[in-house]
Every structure is written in C-alpha cells, then in structure tokens.
C-alpha cells in the first residue's frame, strides 16, 4: 500500500499538530510560572481590575431610587468616590449595609445592583437604608464581568479622574475603613 509522497507529508504534518499545540500551551504555562516568580503575573488578580488604572468602559441604567451612571461620569470626578456592587440576594451585603450607612457622610458612594431585579434591589434599599447617591442596575451581570468582580459585595475606591485606587472583595468593616481606607483617602486628598 503506497501513498503519494505529498499525501504522506500532509499526514505527517497533521500528526504533529497535537505536539505543536501542546508545546504552545506549555510555553504559555512556563511564561506564567516565571512571571509568578518575578511577581509580574499573579493568577489571583485575574479577576480583579488592575489597580491604578482607569475604570473599564461601562454604563448602568437607573436603579430606583437613584440615577444610573457611566464610566465617563466616574472619569469626570474630582473627588474620590466608593463604588459598591451589591445584591438583595446576598447575605454579606445585608450585613455590610450599616457600615456603609455610617460612612456615607464622609465619602460619596455609588451603588450597582448586581444580577438583581430592580424591584428587589429597591426593596432591599428601603429596608436596609440607602447609602448611595447614584444607583445603577446590572441585571445580566455584564458590567460585573467588565469590572471583574468575583461576587458581591465588592467595593472599589475610585480616585479623581476615574482611577481605581483600592479594591476589596470582602464586606467592608470598621477596622478595614480605619486601617486602610481612611489613610488612603487622606493621601488622595493631599495629592
């Protein structure tokens, strides 16, 4: 059984495809591993937007009782603002609300209701109090993906010019505010 030579070459090339594919992936992994050792690549940051970068492009429609906002609104700011992702179905968000209520006089807060029905989110804010000056709704969670949140609640401190200055994937508490957020705010106001 003899096959024409050009056919054999094609066959050989085809059989080498898996090896080539594995090699490419392998080199990628090697790059990642060496990046991890030098600190330039951190897989645990994959889902978090990079700090000290501008906020991603997005826009969220109005969520009663507030008004929606876009990336442009954040970038036009001259004062720091806290952006908080919350949801009525999230127990830690409920627990976090009193802390946010206590902070709202010192720092303006904008909220995004994540994967939540507008009426549920409105009801939630009615019961737990509303610390937010502006409110948007991210019903399908797309904006959450753009921001790279891993769950709710997540909080971002946005500096003047719409730069992400700080990020917390856990509910805020008084200790964190005192030890981390307050000093950061001071330094932002000075600069």
């Amino acid at each position, binding site marked *: 059984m003899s096959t024409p030579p050009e056919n054999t070459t094609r066959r050989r090339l085809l059989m080498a495809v898996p090896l080539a594919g594995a*090699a490419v992936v392998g080199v990628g992994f090697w790059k990642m591993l060496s990046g991890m050792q030098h600190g330039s690549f951190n897989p*645990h940051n*994959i*889902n978090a937007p990079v700090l000290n970068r501008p906020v991603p492009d997005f826009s969220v429609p109005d969520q009663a009782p507030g008004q929606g906002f876009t990336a442009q609104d954040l970038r036009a700011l001259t004062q720091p603002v806290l952006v908080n992702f919350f949801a009525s179905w999230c127990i830690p968000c409920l627990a976090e609300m009193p802390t946010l209520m206590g902070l709202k006089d010192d720092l303006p807060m904008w909220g995004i209701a994540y994967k939540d029905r507008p009426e549920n989110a409105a009801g939630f804010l009615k019961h737990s109090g509303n610390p937010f000056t502006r409110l948007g709704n991210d019903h399908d969670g797309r904006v959450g993906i753009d921001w790279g949140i891993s769950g709710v609640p997540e909080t971002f401190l946005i500096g003047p010019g719409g730069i992400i200055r700080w990020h917390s994937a856990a509910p805020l508490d008084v200790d964190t505010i005192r030890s981390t957020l307050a000093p950061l705010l001071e330094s932002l106001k000075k600069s």
Partner: protein
Amino acid sequence: MLSPELGHYALALACILAAAQGILPLIGAQRRDRRVMMLAPGLAVGQLLALLASFLCLVNAAVTDDFSVQNIAANSAVSKPLLYKITGVWGNHEGSILLWALILGICGAAVAAFGRNLPSALRARVIAVLGAVAAGFELFCLTTSDPFARVWPAPMDGQGMNPLLQDPGLAFHPPILYTGYVGFAVPFAFAIAALMEGRVDAAWGRWVRPWAVAAWCFLTCGIALGSWWSYYVLGWGGYWFWDPVENASLIPWLTGTALIHSAIVVEKRESLKIWTVLLAIATFSFSLSGTFLVRSGILNSVHAFANDPARGIFILGLLAVVIGGSLALFAYRAPTLTAGGLFAPVSREGALVLNNILLCSLCAVVVTGTMYPPFMSLLFDRTISVGKPFFDATTIPLAIPLFIFMGFGPMLPWKRAQLWPVLQRLWIAALLAGVAFAVFTFGMSGIPPILCSALAVWVICSSVLDIADRVRLFRMPLSGSLQRARMLPRSIFGTAIAHAGVGITILGLAAMSQAQHKIVEVPVGTTEHLAGYDWTLTDVKQEPGPNYTALVATLEVRHNGKIVTIMHPSKRSFNSQNQTTTEVSIHTNLLADLYGVLGDKHGTDAAPTYVLRLHYNPLAPWMWLGALIMAIGGALSLSDRRMRVGAPRRAKSSSDTVTTA
C-alpha cells in the same frame, strides 16, 4: 517500626524500582530478550510493595500524632477524630501526591497480574511506560514535596484541619477521583506501547477498553461525589461552579467518554485507530495537567492547595517529558500506522464518530473557557472572567445533538444501516419525548431546560426500548423474552443503563434550573412561603460540640398544613481555627430537596433576627443518582464475558481485574 524515615526510604526505593521498571523491559522488548522482559511484572509488584510500605508509614505517623513530621503538624491535631486522621493523609499536597503514586503503582501491578495473556513484548512495554511515569512522580514527591520531612522542635499539637474538609464525602472523594485520573494511565501506556510497536489492531482495542471503562467509572463517581459535597457542605445550593478544578476533572471525563466509545470501533471494525491512540494520550495528559497545574497555582481556584512556583517548574518539566514525549512519539509513528477504511455515515460506527466529534467539541469548549482568562492576561494584559453564562451558552448547543443521537446510536447496526427501520422502532420514545416536551412547556420556564428534559426522556426511553426490542418484549411470550434477556451480552445492558443514567442526570440538571430560593431575615416564630411549602422558624439555640459551638435552628416545614419535616440547619464556630461552617439541613423525597441554611444573627440580643436561606431544589438527587447509574452501567459492561475473554486466538482472560478493581 513504621518510622517516617523508613517511609522516606521506601519511597526512594520505589522510585529506583520504578526507574528500573521504566527502562529494563523496554530494552528487553527491543532485543526480544524474554528474560529481561520477564523482569517487568516483578519490578511492578516490588514498586507497589515499597509504595504501600511508604504510605503505611505516613498513615502510622498521622494516627499516632507524630507532630515531628511537618506534614502531620500542619494538617492534623490531637483532637481530630481517627477517621479524619487517616483520610487527612491525602487531604494535603504531599500526601495526595503519595496516594497518586500509590494508585499508579496499583495500576502497574494490576497489568502485571492480569495481563498474562497479552503478548509478552506488549505487556513489557505497557508496564515499562507505567513505571517511567511513576518514577517521574515519585521523584517529584521526593525532591519537592517530601511528605516525611521532620520539624524541630516538634510542636505539642498540630494546626488542625480545615473544618470544611472534615466530612465523610470529602474523605473518600480524592481516592476515587485519583483512581479515575490515574486509571487512564493504563490506556495511555497501551497507546505508547502500540506506537512503539507500530501496530494497532482489533485485539489492542479489546485489551485497552476494559481499563478505560474502569477508569471512567471511577472518574464519574469521583466527579459526582465532589459535586455532591459542594452542594451539601458549601451551603449555596449550587452543585457545579465551573471552577478550574472542577473543569480539570470534567475535561478528561469528556475525552475518556469519547475514548471508551472509539475503542469499540477499533475492536469491531479496526478503524479509528490513530484517533483512539490520540484520545488515550490526550485523556491521560488532561488528567495529569489538570491535577498538577492546579497545584502550581496557575489556575485560580477556590480549591487551592498551597502553591509554590518552584514546584510548578518541576511539574511543568515533568509534564513536558510525559506529554511532549508521547505526542512526539505520536507525531513520529502515527503516520506509519495503517489507516482504517471509510464507512457509511449512517451506521453504528458513523454514530460513534459523531459521538466523538461532539464530545471532543464539548471538551474543546471547556478547555477554552478554563484557559482563556490566564492566557488573555498573559498575552494582552487584559483581565476577564469566564463563568456560567459562557459555559451555558456554549455547552448546551453541543449537548443537544449529542443527546438526540444517543437515542439512535445503540440501535444502528454496524457497517451499513438505514435510518427508517430504526426510527420505526423508536417511535414510542419519540412520542413520549414529544409528550414530555408539551408537559414541561407548562411546568418549566426557559427553552434550554425544557428541550433538555424532553431529550432526557428520549434518551431514557430509547435505552429501555433498545433492550425491549432485543428481547422481543410483548412480541413473544414473557418467558421467551426472559430467556433472550439472559442470553443477551451484559455489555448491551451496560450501554443501556449508562445511557439511561445520562438521561437521569440531565433531568436533574434541567430541573435544577427551575430551583427556587429565598433569603430572609426574620425573628423566631415567622413563617415564610416558598414553592408551596410553609417554613416556620420555631427556635434557635446554642449547643456545644466537641471542638466548636453551634447555633442550631429548628425549622418546621408544612405542606397544606401537614408537617413534612423538621429541619435543624446550624452554624458552627470552631474555636481553634477561628472559622465558621454552615451545616445545611436537607430533606429529600428523591423528587425534590428542601434545603435550609442558617445565616448570621442580627438585631439586638433582646430581639434577635436570623438570616435564613431556603431552597426548593427539584430533582436535585437525580444529578448524582444518574452518575452512579452511569458507573453501574460501566461496571456491568466490564463484567461482560466478551470483555473478559481475550481476542479469539488467546483463550483466557486478559482483564478480570477491572471487575474487582
């Protein structure tokens, strides 16, 4: 006597024996020297004995609370119950690698013991490949993750185990899952041996298939057990999170499923040979990459083991040798294998090819979804997350044709079939699926779940019909049908049962998309309504436990005024670890789970309120029940005489192993 040093020594001995096992039989097979080839079984058994001794030493150190061993000090404590002291041995990185090596050793010894009817050169090569892989991982264990390392001064008590992991489901999840992963090393070794010999024939397909089916059964059970654990322990009512670690087990399952189907074509029609060899290599490569990349910390996961990039480099080197080496051999040798003939699209083999195409596309989608975030981050410095919406949108359109053809496949004859007679035999299944579709349209919301449920009914009915048709049920006296059923090969029943199991799992998954839940913050005495049930929180009290204090709620669930169940969801605070766990309370009647979780306590001490999370999960147990049924189907087909009896020219068994393994 079973000191950690002895264990360390035994591990080093196993590594040397494995290296010898990986080299000598290959030389023997190359020179056709029978005496050298005959070393293989002895070395494989010797390696297994050394590994067993090593493993026993580690278990002994854990049971006797030897906190001078770093691994024990970091993961165990005096107060830990005995069961978890033993199972905790494989609950950490070092111990789990040792377990991994042990299972690989068992595979090698099993081939040595039960592969007596294999041609001696093939057997020597298979054992050698297993030995070489084992040597690599034992070297990894010795050099970068020594489970026997001592600490000085030894602490008085260990740091204890994460309380979330103190659970019987999780205790037995790793050995079963690893047996599935590692079991695919045997088909892999067969593939490499066949490439070395340059020969793949029907007999090869027959030898390799029982091993693949056995590994597949374990992997199926392992995945189901892991999913069940996350359902009842994590307390979020979810069962699958598309987390990289979960995907890492799903990927080899998909290619492994393709493998056990394509090997049938090799066996019956001597076709798809190169493809099957590639699948055998791919399945084990995915098993390896999955388990080990998770440990290198590249994949971002909630299941993380302690990560260490230095370890990662070793792993990557090892993967490059094993996977790269085998694929290079494939690229070199596969073109010389004779290709099988073409065949008609409408035939059993045509259906099996379609099965392979769809399963491998599904696998490609899952691989893409898993690897996309780190590669995007590496190449374009862009951060994205890929989650449930992506996987839902991409896997369902591929799964739907798979389910449709699952109904036809087993009924099509080999070589050349006609669709019409098969359709005539399946009209009842099609009718029932149509009726189911109409019924589900009223009861469920969302097109994909309705369609998938109807297809699940189709798959189950056509599996039942296949058997009914073969035994000529109702077309001849019942005693005659029973007689025919007894004569029918068990693998036919195995196929039907496994396919029906898939249908049951799909029904469970589709029904779960209709699950209802509610989160409330209420004082004691409140009644909530969910899914036609009245849930009353009657009491919450503190109860002390052995190494925790628990807040236990009493939740009475009524349906139409009659009490259905009294549930006691609780929340445990562990004093030593400063950690809390939620103990979910689940009441099931096999058609639906009532699932209650107690959350935080709010309000003042005088008027406390409690957060409650209530779920109504229809058909939830079916997801795991279906997986169990799939594994039972696989086991049944393993017990088939045709699987045990070797190729015609070899009269006696080649693999009774797998029935007992």
